[in-house]
């Protein structure tokens, strides 16, 4: 049984050599060619591989066969309910390879992948010290170091903001949302085998996407992210949060649909290079099925209630009540303001008051050719005001991790872009009432962080209502 420990715990215990073994194993993996499934480059390519973006590409590279690449590489699952189980499978195989290497180097047999728990004090919100220095005290290369991170990351100066480590995702009541409407769900929307344009689950958005963009550099790019050892510790924490969510409320449960549990096979090369097929049902119990557990899966929200209760099964389905009609461009220059008019009487029966409904805002089909870090969404800011002066009206900050990949016309998402959903019920209920049958909901978008010259295009903003 492997114990996956908090990096902070390890760093505070001089006797614990988990990170040193991790670094040495990564060093061995870096020395192997990309054709070897036990190399770091191969493991990174399992997430995604595009030759033109490979920073370590060399003419001497001998790539695996085309059929091998098709079967085992560029498999990462995002924007769907497969996000969490696939990354669990991915980490499981990565950990087994690293652990075998640790054992071969004379380390412990039960080495476990450490996780980076950034939801804590300011120390935990910086890159862990063990990952920052290019060399160890004696001059030995620190293979956990990666120079390709955001400015200030490796000096410890960069500290993640509150929004980037926010754990409101744990307050989602359900794992899987309907594919096109309403709450995003904790784990992501229901999807078929092929999924493009789906919204992100709450956990995938924040803190998963936000911390990818916080570390920046290679971690902000799908192809390169697996080349940074910190990526695996980040995803280890994401996997841990899945366990935390399941345990914090007895109503929280994984999907039971066979479409999730057993229809889709995902293929990996196991430790010995053999083909291994896994389904979601094979990775639900980390102890019994995968032989690992986490040092700490206690509830960081101290029992805080979910956004809405699941005590009574909900018989309704979210319904669109309003939408913008023009494409919106958001850039670094200034905020963009728009208004969406919705009827005060909404719902299928047209007898339901808007204020008795839960209201969700969707940003649909966000695309961008260049880099973009995040986008702020405000509700209720007057058109002549700067949203940044009204922080209390900010409903969400969405990290734009993966927007470039999702915007590529020739990629698997075929240009569908990213889609986000957020609950804005409380802010809508605070809007001043105006005479008439319509309520105008002001929505403002503001670019945040490191942006390129390109604007982000928002395909549409829409509002959905759901009976509460």
């Amino acid at each position, binding site marked *: 049984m492997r114990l996956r420990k908090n990096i902070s715990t390890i760093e505070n215990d001089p006797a614990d050599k988990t990170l040193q073994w991790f670094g040495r194993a990564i060093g061995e993996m870096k020395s192997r060619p990309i054709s070897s499934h036990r190399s770091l480059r191969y493991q990174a390519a399992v997430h995604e591989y595009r030759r033109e973006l490979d920073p370590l590409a060399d003419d001497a590279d001998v790539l695996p066969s085309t059929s091998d690449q*098709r*079967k085992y590489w560029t*498999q990462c*699952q995002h924007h769907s309910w497969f996000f969490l189980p696939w990354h669990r499978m991915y980490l499981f195989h990565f950990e087994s390879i690293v652990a075998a290497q640790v054992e071969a180097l004379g380390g412990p047999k039960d080495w476990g992948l450490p996780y980076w728990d950034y939801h804590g004090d300011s120390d935990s919100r910086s890159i862990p010290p063990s990952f920052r220095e290019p060399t160890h005290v004696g001059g030995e290369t620190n293979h956990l170091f990666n120079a390709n991170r955001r400015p200030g990351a490796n000096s410890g100066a960069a500290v993640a903001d509150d929004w980037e480590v926010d754990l409101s995702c744990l307050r989602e*009541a*359900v*794992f*899987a*949302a*309907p*594919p*096109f*409407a309403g709450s995003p*769900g904790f784990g992501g929307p*229901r999807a*078929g*085998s*092929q999924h*493009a*344009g789906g919204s992100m689950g709450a956990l995938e958005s924040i803190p998963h996407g936000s911390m990818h963009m916080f570390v920046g550099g290679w971690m902000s790019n799908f192809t390169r992210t697996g080349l940074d050892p910190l990526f695996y510790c980040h995803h280890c924490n994401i996997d841990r949060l899945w366990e935390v969510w399941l345990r914090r409320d007895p109503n929280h*449960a*994984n*999907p*039971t*649909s066979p479409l*999730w549990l057993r*229809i*889709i*096979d*995902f293929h990996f090369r196991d430790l010995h290079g053999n083909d291994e097929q896994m389904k979601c049902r094979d990775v639900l119990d980390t102890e019994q099925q995968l032989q690992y557990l986490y040092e700490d899966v206690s509830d960081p929200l101290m029992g805080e209630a979910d956004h809405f209760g*699941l005590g009574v*099964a*909900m*018989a*309704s*389905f979210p*319904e*669109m*009540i*309003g*939408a*913008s*009609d023009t*494409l919106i461009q958001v850039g670094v220059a200034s905020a963009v303001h728009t208004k969406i008019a919705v009827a005060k009487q909404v719902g*299928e029966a047209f007898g339901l008051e808007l204020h008795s409904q839960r209201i969700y805002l969707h940003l*649909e*089909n966000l695309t961008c050719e260049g880099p973009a870090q995040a986008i702020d969404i405000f509700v209720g800011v007057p058109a002549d005001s700067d949203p940044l002066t009204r922080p209390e009206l900010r409903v969400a900050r969405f990290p734009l991790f993966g927007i470039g990949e999702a915007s590529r*016309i*020739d*990629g*698997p*998402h*075929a*240009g*569908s872009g990213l889609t986000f959903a957020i609950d804005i019920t409380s802010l809508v209920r605070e809007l001043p009432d105006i005479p008439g049958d319509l309520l105008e909901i002001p929505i403002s978008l503001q670019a945040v962080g490191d942006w390129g010259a390109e604007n982000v295009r928002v*395909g*549409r903003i*829409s509002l959905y209502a759901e009976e509460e």
Partner: protein
Amino acid sequence: MSANDTGRTGPRALIRAHPEWWIFAISICAWVAIWPHLENVAGVGHVHTHAAGAAHVHAMPPGRVLIDWILMTFAMMIPLTSHPIRHVVHRSFLHRRHVVRVLFLLGYVVPWIGLGLCFVWVSSAWPNLISWAAAPLFGVGALWVLLSQTRERALDRCRALRPISAHGFRANGDVFGFGFRVGYWCIFSCGILMLACASTGHAAVAMLGGFVLGLFERGGFRPRRRMVATGYFLISLFFVGPWLEVIVRYIDHLY
């Protein structure tokens, strides 16, 4: 669909959650309408049946050939549009859900009708070509599935989602255009195979086999190219009869 899956249960919620179910009903009706053609099984050793099927194609008036083509499209292709159908319905106002379904479907079949017109023209202008075309078309289709990067991109693009307007004529135009776009890319991915099916006179092996392979291909995370290509290649063997006749006669002539 259990509460744990999405938190929503009840028959009304179930129907609202699956607006694509109606296209399965249309597909079933199309299968029923085209059923009389399916008794033409065809295969190696069933040369007469195949020839009769092929003769059936070009003995019919062009309008009838086109209708059969459209029925075949409804039967085999529209069940594969469940994902974009859900997209346009859920991204539209509730009172427009019937309109957008119809508009999407109309947009979707327009490019297929275009391809069908080409087929009608070829079968009218070169009727004897049809009896020879099935096997090579399935063979080419198998290679297209196996080797073509264009097809792989077309499969991605026919599943891609686009923003659609919510109000007015622009909303109708966007939905129709989206359906057209999906149909256009579907032709790149499946057009050759549909031509092959039509050239057999809608033989059961071709249509049912092609339909099952189409569903199977989309059932996994990655399109199962090798198995699907093998399936199409095996179907091509059913229609290789006329070519075998020629080869046998040629060998006879030589010896």
